């Protein structure tokens, strides 16, 4: 026979079994899309900085040059050095000190601004996160990753005063952009730079370089030396290697990678499982027809070809569509992931777009080939018999047992059905289990990360803070303050004003009096925060926070030990213990000027400030030392039911413009992380639901005649839907019950891995987030996935014409 009959047989199968064809195509579409996304997440998480660096054409070296010592031609000539593969610049740059509007407004740390006409370019291709590029004088685009130690959020439209320049020009924030190199704190149009340079300040410019060989610090040093040698002496005044940025970014990214990878792996495994189940199930469902084809003369090879084609055709179409879908999904999801990682942009690697559809097609081929070959080997009569109802005897005991339950008969018949096709039921259970486990994992992860965010911000324990103004030149500042916990709410934010600045003692009296008088105050404690000190045995400086009073309520989560209870006791963060090799119970020696203070470590707290090199203690521990510390802020706990914004507003009005009163909020990245978790979980649940849909479609097709009989003897549409849903409800419930401990185990594995990557310990309370009620609700996740996946085909079954169903064999 010619190939024509094979094609006709395959085409006939495709058109005759439209629902099955659509389901195969749909499952491949979603599974391929999910796999593209999952593999992209895994691939991009392996070295997200490197991916972003490649995509954004990062610079191996950001150099600051003196444009007076070298001419433009000399600077341009560095492009032609043999070591250099690309160069950009010179971009004029200047370092300024921005301030918030209003007299005596909040002063920000010194910020480097670079003049660039556009965000794009051959090197350091900037990614606009919001707003637009500066188009004229008076506009600024801020970096989304400002100077270290500061994460002040700056809404678009904020007007910054450049206080370091005569005339105090203003710049309006029109955009937020990301540089993979963190090459500047902000960008302005090139003509703006000259206006921002204070008189007497030397000119500076930024050059960006990519080198042929820059894999190691030694390579980069050699490249920089080659550039410097090509320019007049003293031209290159400073350089920053991408390796240092990468090290910093990698330490920021590392904590998030485990959970992203976990979702990615679950997605891949689930997709493979469901595709194999769908395709092989479709071929098995066609055994009767295969038998008929064989009985009219089709050879085994032709049968295999027909059925492999019949399953393969919609699968290939679905695959190709899935690649498009995956790339479309990747835009928001990889965008969210890039935000979490802080790398500006992530893309689907090209090899993923090739490997996934090829892999899926191979999987489809194998899943179709195996049952097709089996059918090809059967005789026509055997194939016809195999294609009818499941093997006699399977599930009978289940029907007998379940029939005795005091449940509606359609329910018990439905619950017994999976036992007739145990292999299919097992695969369906596995798919639902993965989806439900992902839900359990996601719920726990979200709660844990919420506690992490709270542990970092202390926003529940101390929702309001008062910052004491310093009398340093330039007006009130935030020197020595935990700037990472400040949220400045736009041009209207901040209440610091001009005029007479109080002394420390006056400030303390004024603040404490106001706090005692303010309704809603529950606790307050004066804090000397962020002072850097020396500790014996450590080359790096350690951040010291000293409390002037009881601070046990301030919300620091204990990892081990206890909060200090008296003088001579300190609590430290995990990084301190790791870097010093100390443990709880050991003593440390702190140096303040000429005096040394010894104290015992009584507890390990959850704190990532200064990369975990942090000490917390009471003021009394430092008594007698020449520590130079002063109260620079007050942390305030409120009575239940007190509105923090209203409290802050009232307190600020009472204290006056010399003081900054702020509400304490969580890191703005936290909602992005929650959004990413939610999106990934939903996608996995949808894939699991599609697996259920396929199972029910196959089962309704197999049992269409039985459905006709049920309806003929009086089963109503509602009873039919109940029965069909119950075909998978029992499986879903079982999967959900198993998924809960599986998801909890995954959570308990991933969280510590994330914490270890962040070089921070994990308080037990951050792991123990699953309450009894939650576990009970999560156990129903599998049931929900199963019911949702089954409802559509159950409705079709209920609406099917009884007379037609009875005629089906």
């Amino acid at each position, binding site marked *: 026979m010619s190939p024509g009959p094979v094609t006709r047989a395959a085409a006939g199968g495709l058109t005759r079994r439209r629902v099955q064809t659509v389901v195969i195509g749909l499952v491949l579409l979603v599974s391929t899309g999910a796999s593209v996304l999952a593999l992209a997440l895994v691939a991009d998480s392996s070295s997200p900085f490197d991916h972003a660096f490649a995509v954004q054409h990062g610079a191996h070296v950001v150099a600051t040059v003196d444009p007076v010592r070298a001419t433009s031609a000399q600077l341009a000539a560095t492009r032609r050095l043999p070591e250099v593969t690309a160069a950009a610049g010179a971009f004029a740059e200047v370092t300024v000190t921005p301030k918030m509007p209003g007299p005596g407004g909040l002063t920000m740390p010194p910020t480097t601004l670079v003049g660039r006409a556009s965000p794009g370019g051959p090197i350091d291709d900037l990614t606009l996160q919001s707003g637009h590029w500066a188009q004229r004088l008076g506009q600024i685009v801020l970096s989304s990753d400002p100077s270290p130690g500061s994460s002040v959020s700056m809404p678009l439209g904020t007007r910054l005063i450049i206080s370091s320049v005569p005339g105090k020009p203003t710049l309006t924030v029109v955009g937020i952009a990301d540089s993979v190199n963190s090459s500047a704190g902000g960008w302005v149009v090139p003509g703006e730079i000259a206006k921002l340079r204070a008189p007497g300040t030397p000119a500076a410019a930024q050059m960006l370089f990519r080198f042929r060989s820059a894999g190691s610090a030694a390579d980069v040093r050699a490249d920089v030396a080659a550039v410097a040698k090509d320019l007049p002496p003293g031209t290159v005044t400073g350089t920053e290697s991408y390796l240092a940025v990468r090290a910093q970014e990698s330490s920021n990214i590392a904590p998030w990678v485990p959970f992203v990878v976990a979702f990615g792996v679950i997605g891949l495994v689930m997709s493979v499982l469901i595709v194999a189940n769908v395709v092989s199930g479709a071929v098995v469902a066609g055994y009767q027809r295969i038998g008929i084809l064989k009985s009219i003369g089709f050879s085994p090879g032709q049968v295999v070809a027909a059925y492999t084609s019949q399953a393969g055709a919609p699968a290939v179409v679905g695959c190709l569509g899935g690649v498009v879908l995956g790339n479309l999904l990747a835009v928001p999801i990889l965008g969210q992931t890039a935000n979490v990682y802080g790398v500006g942009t992530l893309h689907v690697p090209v090899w993923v777009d090739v490997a996934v559809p090829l892999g899926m097609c191979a999987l489809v081929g194998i899943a179709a080939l195996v049952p097709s070959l089996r059918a090809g080997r059967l005789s026509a009569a055997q194939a016809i018999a195999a294609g009818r109802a499941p093997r006699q005897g399977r599930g009978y005991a289940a029907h007998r047992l379940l029939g005795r339950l005091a449940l509606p008969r359609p329910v018990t018949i439905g619950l*017994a059905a999976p036992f007739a096709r145990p292999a299919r039921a097992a695969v369906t259970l596995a798919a639902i289990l993965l989806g439900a486990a992902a839900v359990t994992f996601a719920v726990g992860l979200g709660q844990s990360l919420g506690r992490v965010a709270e542990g970092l911000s202390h926003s529940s324990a101390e929702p309001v803070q008062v910052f004491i103004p310093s009398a340093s030149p330039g007006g009130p500042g935030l020197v020595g303050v935990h700037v990472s916990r400040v949220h400045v709410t736009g041009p209207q934010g901040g209440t610091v004003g001009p005029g007479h600045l109080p002394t420390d003692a006056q400030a303390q009296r004024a603040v404490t009096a106001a706090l005692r008088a303010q309704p809603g105050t529950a606790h307050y404690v004066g804090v000397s925060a962020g002072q850097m000190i020396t500790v014996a045995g450590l080359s790096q400086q350690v951040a010291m926070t000293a409390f002037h009073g009881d601070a046990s309520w301030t919300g620091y989560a204990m990892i081990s030990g206890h909060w200090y209870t008296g003088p001579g006791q300190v609590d430290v963060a995990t990084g301190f213990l790791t870097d010093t090799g100390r443990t709880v119970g050991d003593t440390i020696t702190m140096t303040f000027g000429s005096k040394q203070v010894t104290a015992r470590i009584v507890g390990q707290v959850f704190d990532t400030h200064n990369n975990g090199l942090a000490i917390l203690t009471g003021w009394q521990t430092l008594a007698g030392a020449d520590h130079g510390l002063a109260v620079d802020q007050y942390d305030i706990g409120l009575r239940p039911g007190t509105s923090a914004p209203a409290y802050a507003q009232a307190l600020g009005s009472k204290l006056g413009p010399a003081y900054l009163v702020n509400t304490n909020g969580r890191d703005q990245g936290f909602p992005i992380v929650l959004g990413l978790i939610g999106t990934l979980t939903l996608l996995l649940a949808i894939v699991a639901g599609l697996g259920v849909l396929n199972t029910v479609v196959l089962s309704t097709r197999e049992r269409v005649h039985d459905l006709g009989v049920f309806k*003929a003897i*009086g089963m109503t549409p509602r009873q039919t839907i109940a029965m069909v849903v119950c075909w998978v409800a029992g499986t879903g419930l079982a999967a959900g019950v198993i998924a809960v401990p599986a998801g909890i185990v995954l959570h308990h594995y991933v969280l510590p891995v994330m914490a270890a990557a962040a070089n921070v310990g994990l308080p037990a309370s951050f792991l123990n987030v699953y309450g009894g009620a939650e576990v009970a609700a999560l156990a129903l996740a599998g049931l929900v996935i199963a019911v949702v996946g089954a409802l559509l085909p159950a409705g079709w079954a209920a609406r099917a014409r009884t007379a037609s169903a*009875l005629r089906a064999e």
Partner: protein
Amino acid sequence: MDALVRISQVTKRYDNDGRPAVDGVSLEIAPGEAVAVMGPSGSGKSTLLNLIAGLDRPTSGTVTVAGERVDKLSETGLARFRRRRIGMIFQFFNLLDDLTVEDNVLLPAQLSGLRSGQARARAAELLAALRIDRYRNAYPGRLSGGERQRVAIARALVNRPELLLADEPTGALDTATGEEIGQLLRDLNASGQSLVLVTHNPDLAARYASRTVQIVDGRLADGQLAELGVRR
């Protein structure tokens, strides 16, 4: 006496251009009658049965059974109608292979919400009456054709329907077994059970039905009127 079944000018088309499967048929069946619907293959007799049972809807015309307008009922209404008023017997039995004989018989009663004890008592009564009570825990796959048809009859009778519809009930049986089943149906009719029997076998129609209706190409044969027909 009011007709148990009244079919009035019923037409059924499966597609707009083709010949109707049933074309303008009018028919009345009195309570207690045993009516045979005869015709060649493709004549529309099974379609007519399906319309009476509410398994299909007429394109036009009305179908009334026990005073209920079957053609107007919703799907749920039709299912409840079949439970209460109709018992169906099929040529190929249409038993559920993964349920025991007893469970097959109980099914319509359970779908109706009949209490378990009452349903089991009724099933036991029918199994005994049909002489298949020893097979109550067996599965249909293990029974002979005649035994399976008895199970199907028991299932059809469990809810005490007003009308029994049998579509070629002996078509898949050997002659002797067919005779047994036919006699069974006749005995049921003799005890007052209304019966509509679809068959292409004139002997069966002659022996077990009190009236025969001929249908050809979807229409009642020439010379037959709905109210008259041929009575025995």
